[in-house]
Structure formats: C-alpha cells, structure tokens
C-alpha cells in the first residue's frame, strides 16, 4: 500500500513518557506509543511485560507516574484521564479478565455502556438490545440475551465482552487477548470484524499470544519487553520466529515431543456418562503417556475432566485406577487416588491471588505436611516450596510475597507446583497455555516432558491443534459429549487434525 493512499495520516493517540510503578517494580518504563486513525496495531510481549498496564494507563484505570502525556487526536495533551473521560473520548477495552457483570443478563452486559452514558434515557433499552442482537449476528454467535451471564462459560463470556465493545461509539478499541478462549471460526469472524472496524476509521490495538493471528490482522506491531518498548515494526516482512525473538530477547526453538512407548495402564474409563455433559466415554491412559484431548467448546472435554477429578458424579460407567475401580465422591477422593487437575481458569480458580506463594504451594498437601502431629511448621512449607521453585525454575524473589506479585508465567508454575506436590499419577492440564507467552509455553512443555519421563501420565486438554499435535502421544477428539476419534500425531499432518476438530 502506497503512502499516497493516505495523504494525511491522522493520529488517534500519541502517548509519551508513560511510566507506572508498583512497589519496587517498574511495570512501565518511559513508554511512547503512537496509534494512527483506522490502523490495526498489535501489541505483543511476554506475560508481565507491561501490555495490560499500558492499556490500563491509557484507558484511565491506572494513574501513571506524573510526567506522562496523552494526546487524543488534535486535542491538547493531558497527563492522565479518568475511566469516564476515556469512555467519553471513545476509548473502549476488551479486558483480559473481561470485566463483565455475572449477575446481569447477557443483553444488559452487552449494552451496559449505553446505561453509563444515558442512565435515565428510558427508551434506550429496546433499541440497544436490538442493536446487541445485530452485533451477535455479525459475529456469527447466538446467545440467549435474557440468560444471566453467570450461567455462561468463559468462552461465551469472551464473546459477550466482544459484542459489548462493538456496541459502542468507539474511536479506539483495545482488545486484550480477545481470542484466548475462542474457536477457530469465532476467531476468524472477529478478525473480519476488526478489519471492518478499521476500514471505518476506528483504531484497534490488538493483544494476543497467538503470533500467527497477530501478523494476519495488523498493519504494525509493537513489541514490549520488561516494561519498555522494544520497537514498532511494519507487519509486512515480519514473521513469527522473529517476533518471538524480539519478545523474549533470545532465540526460540519450536519443540516437539519425542514419541515414547507407554507404560502400564494407570487410568481407565469404562463407559463413563454424565447426562447432558458426555456419554459413554472409554479410554485407557498409560504411565508416561501424554493424551491430548481436544474438540470444540461444549464438546464435553472440560466436563469430562471434572468427572475424572471427582467434581461431578457420573451416572453410569466406571473409573479404574491401576486396574481397580474407584468411587470418586469429591475431588478430595480424586486427589487421594493420585489425580490432579489444573483448571483452565488459573487466575481465579487455580490460585489464591492475595495469599503468599508459600501458602499457595502448600494448600493441596496441608494434611501430609502437618502429620502426624497436626502441627504445621513454617519450615516444612518452606522446604516444599523451595523444592518446587527449583524444579520448575520459577522466578521468585521471596516466597512469602503474595502470588499476584508474580508474572503470569510464574503464577502458572505455582499452580503446577501445588498440584505436583500431591505426587499425582495422573495430571490433567486444562488449556495450560491459554494466555501464556511463547517462552513460558516452551517451559511448560519442558516440565511436562520431564514429568512423563518419571512416569506421570498427562491428559492435555487444548483447543490448539498445533499444540496437541506437537506434544501428545495420542489424541482423542470429542464432539457432542462423545469421543469420535482416537489417533496418533504421526497418523496425520497438523492441518488435517485442525480440520478434523472443526469438522
């Protein structure tokens, strides 16, 4: 595209000298960021590099260190803004944590911003709901507008958050990991919409760990590392490998699991059924094996994991561990039988964010740590924690700090540590790389490979065909609550697997 097509490039945002400090950590260090009108600009970087903090500073959620300057369009620069002012300037955000309202209906979540702007406009509701319905059609999703949001899963909530922003009269839209839990079709619909919005002159800042997606949609990409801007580059001529290097600051090799012959059976499912969730699921998991479990959202994979972990009781069928049938009445029973489950919603369900790294690591093994005397010594917790920090190479300055002081990738390791401390025979990893950057992803699979070498069996649940393909010994595809395919990665190319999942 020639420069002549846009004789005057209009600036939508010019941010300068943006810094933000949390305690001793400089989360943003003198950041400068420019956004042109109507451009799709991607922001990439490892977890904890300051992307979300930058978004929060620009949208008024955080007050930056004095000295910052934000200029919107041709308006005079300001040193900070409030969330309400940001909204008034047409700045909208799809937050990484979604920031939706669980108790409001889907429809009211989508049109919430109309209420903020015009709290006493009575005729607003019906018109806005009508608009919400049209937006959903554009995005190719169908959700019940009257259903309370709390009844929806995380992926559907993400769609609601996207619909919500698309409702607004936006001039700048930040999308912080909007596709993290979406299926391929939904992601493609979203990327189409992003292109349409950009054609209408709306500037989009797109944050994603899926680098392929990033390069597909944007015109420029800004890379951040350790709170600083590494640089802004045109998307043309950029490739995933180069981006990964810029993000991590070192070369990055794509790893693949070497196939190993499985050991003795450790977990067997025999006709397991939970009505309305999944039916007649049977498979055998062996020692040292990684079993990839995939399928579209709603195919029943997470529900199946919950049943194996004793969170729901099957109506029929058996679960056998080491050949003996077990009755799992709760996840406590499952843990005692050597099953551990790392949830997909790690930040909320996997960790007690405000508690210390020590306590978070010890929580699954309190009984063992305090037996036989019932006395829970700080030393035993510290020993346990130090052991796992070492094994998982977690970057921790002081384990007595709250776990939310760690970056996302390191938090992930704490979740893993707390479950590995239970010495499981079977570890279920539910979407372990959602929202995790390339460097941390590679680390997770390095750890997983080590664990399997020691004989642990792993069920890897994931949406990402390439991940499942690269790291599983065997792959099960679920659809509508049934296992429809049982294959090995060597049987097919990654693209074929992708097609099978989406078929």
């Amino acid at each position: 595209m020639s420069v002549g097509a846009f004789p005057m490039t209009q600036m939508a945002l010019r941010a300068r000298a943006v810094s933000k400090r949390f305690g001793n950590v400089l989360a943003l260090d003198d950041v400068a960021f420019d956004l042109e009108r109507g451009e799709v600009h991607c922001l990439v970087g490892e977890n904890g590099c300051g992307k979300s903090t930058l978004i929060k500073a620009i949208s008024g959620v955080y007050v930056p260190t004095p000295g910052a300057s934000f200029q919107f369009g041709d308006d005079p620069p300001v040193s900070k803004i409030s969330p309400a002012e940001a909204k008034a300037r047409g700045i909208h955000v799809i937050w990484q944590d979604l920031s939706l309202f669980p108790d409001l209906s889907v429809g009211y979540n989508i049109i919430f911003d109309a209420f903020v702007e015009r709290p006493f406009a009575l005729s607003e509701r019906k018109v806005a709901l009508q608009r919400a319905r049209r937006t959903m059609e554009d995005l190719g999703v169908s959700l019940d507008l009257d259903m309370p949001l709390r009844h929806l899963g995380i992926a559907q909530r993400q769609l609601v958050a996207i619909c919500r922003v698309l409702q607004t009269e936006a001039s700048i839209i930040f999308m912080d990991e909007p596709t993290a839990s979406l299926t391929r079709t939904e992601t493609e619909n979203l990327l189409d919409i992003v292109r349409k919005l950009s054609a209408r002159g709306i500037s989009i800042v797109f944050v994603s760990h899926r680098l392929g997606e990033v390069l597909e949609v944007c015109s420029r990409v800004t890379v951040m590392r350790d709170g600083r801007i590494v640089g802004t580059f045109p998307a043309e001529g950029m490739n995933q490998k180069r981006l990964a290097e810029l993000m991590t600051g070192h070369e990055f090799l794509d790893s693949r699991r070497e196939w190993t012959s499985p050991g003795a059976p450790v977990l067997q499912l025999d006709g397991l059924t939970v009505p309305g969730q999944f039916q007649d699921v049977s498979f055998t998991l062996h020692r040292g094996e990684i079993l990839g479990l995939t399928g579209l959202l709603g195919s029943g994979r997470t529900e199946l994991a919950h049943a194996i972990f004793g969170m729901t009781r099957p109506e029929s069928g058996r679960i056998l561990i080491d050949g003996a049938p077990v009755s799992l009445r709760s996840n406590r029973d499952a843990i005692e039988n050597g099953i551990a489950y790392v949830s997909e919603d790690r930040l909320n369900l996997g960790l007690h964010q405000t508690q210390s790294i020590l306590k978070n690591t010890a929580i699954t093994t309190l009984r063992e740590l305090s037996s036989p005397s019932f006395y829970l010594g700080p030393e035993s917790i510290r020993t346990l924690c130090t052991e796992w920090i070492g094994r998982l190479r977690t970057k921790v300055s002081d384990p007595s700090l709250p776990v939310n002081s760690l970056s996302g990738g390191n938090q992930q390791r704490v979740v893993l540590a707390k479950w590995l401390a239970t010495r499981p025979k079977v570890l279920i990893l539910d979407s372990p790389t959602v929202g995790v950057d390339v460097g941390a992803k590679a680390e997770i699979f390095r750890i997983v490979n080590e664990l399997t070498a020691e004989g642990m069996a792993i069920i890897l649940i994931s949406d990402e065909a390439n991940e499942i393909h690269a790291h599983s010994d065997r792959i099960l595809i679920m659809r509508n609550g049934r296992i429809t395919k049982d294959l090995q990665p060597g049987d097919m190319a990654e693209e074929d697997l992708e097609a099978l999942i989406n078929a």
Partner: protein
Amino acid sequence: MRRMVGSVEGILFVILLALCVVLSLATDSFFSMQNFFDLLNNQSVNIIFAVGLVVVLIAGGIDISFSVAASVVQYVVVVMMIQIGGGNWLLGFVAAMVCGLALGLFNAFLIHKLRIVSIIASIGTYNLFFGLLMYLTRGRSIYAIPDWLDERVALLTVGADRAEATLYLPALVMLVVVSVAWFILARTGFGRLVYGFGSDPEAARRSGVRIAVMQGFAYGWLGLCAGIAGLMQAHMVREVVPNALYGRELDVLAAVVLGGAVLGGGRGTVLGAALGVLLLAVVQNGLNLLGVTPYAFKAIVGAIILIAVTFTNFDKVAPLIGLSNRKARTT
C-alpha cells in the same frame, strides 16, 4: 410474566398464595378484611425498610444501622416539630427524609471515603446512632406528639361495627416507595448500573461508572426510606419510643434475603423484598391464629429462611449432592 415463572419472586408469590389459602381454610379469622388490613398496616413500615435495604444489598453492601437511624429520625423530627409549634405533614415528611438521607450519606461517606467495609461501618454507626440517642434522651419516650402525627389518617374503611376494617396512611406511603424503587431499579439504566456495580465493582469502575454516586445512592436511599419508615411507625403507634425499632434490622434483613437478595451483591428485587416481608408476616400471623406458642415463632421463621435460601441456591447445591446440573452446563 414469563420471567416470573421460576424466579424467586414467582416462587415466593405462589408460596404466599398457598399459605393464605391454607390459613383461610384452617382458621376462621385469617380470611377477613380486618386481618388483611391489619397485616398491611403493620407491615408497611417493614416493607419500606426492606425496599431501602434491598438497594444496598444489590449494590454489594450491607447496612444494619437503618432501624436505629429511623428511631433517631423519629425523635429529631418530633422534637423539631414541637419546637416550631406543631408543624404539619409536609414539614414532617421533608424533615424525616432529609434527616434520614443525612444519616444514610454518613454511612456512604464512611464506606466510600474512609474505605471502611460496609458491615463494620454500619456496626459502628448502629452503636453510634443508638448510643447517642439513648444518651441524649436518657431513654425518655415522647407521648405528646403533634396532633397531625397522632391522629391516624384513614385511607379506606370497609364494613361496620365489629367487622370494621381501616387501612391507614403507611400503606399508601409504602406503595409509593415501592413504586419509586421498582421504577428506578427495573426501568432505568441507572438501575442497571446499580446491579452492575454490585455484581463487579471494578468492572463498573472501568466502565466509567462513578462509584461515589452508586454508594451515595444506595445508602442515601436506605436512609431516606428509614426516615420515612420512622415517621410512619410513630404515626401508627402514636408515640416515640427510642428503642422501639431496636432489633428490627435483622428481621428486615432476613426478609430481604428471603426475597432473593444475596450478600455478594448484584441480585435482589424490590418485589422480592416486599414479598419476603409479607411471607414472614403471614407465617407469624398464621401461627398466631393457629394458637402456636409465640415462643416457637423465631425457630420456625429461622427454619423457613434456611430452607428457602437453600432452594433458591439450588443450581449451586445440586451438583454437590450428586444431582446433575443441566441448567448451568455450558453448551
């Protein structure tokens, strides 16, 4: 109407109706205009309280100081009216509302500006308000209240002689308060903001919702309702007794929770709160007429609340006790 079926309000309404039918058949005196009007006359004050409190609960807070705040308002307004030579309904209402609003906003100030957790703030103000009232009045009641307040205003009288039944002013005031609250919460965008704020305060803040306005509205509205309820209570009992409303807060809180509000915020309705009050009142009334000893009332009411809240939480409870949970499943 579609939403009523299966909602907390719908269930409460059906139970209330069923209870009324049963009591009408089981006792001679339940199904009478007199009993019905008595119930409304006596419960209007509680419903006004409940309609105030439900807004605070929806906004994710809690307040237990409203009942003693109402006592303070009663006392202040009556003393003030006597001082200016009697006053009238208009002045009385204005004074009660302003005074109640001020006490409510004081709670909002503690919670929003000083960042005190709402339960702690209101335990503080509960003791502060009541302590100051008892200290300054030495616990003395006022029996000679102004004439306009003393003479009960009848809205409607039906029947004659022994069967005469009269509906008084508080019922109308209650209806107005209920209507206003319902309109704001259910029919305006502002109402959605209150629900949104209660459901996730940080998400609301990021959306540009002004937190101070939300807190001020919730606690201010409850204060306003408490002021009005205080005035109505004085009107019905025709005296001002400083500790008359002391302890009422937990009854009202129980009724509001029965009506579907939750302590986490984001849930609850005006209709539910009113039905919660009425249901508990009808149960007590029925037990009375059936000749059950009043000593058993508290235990029965407590059991009803626990059972009711368990059932309204059923979608969460079901999977824990092994029943598959079809409704909450993601599809």
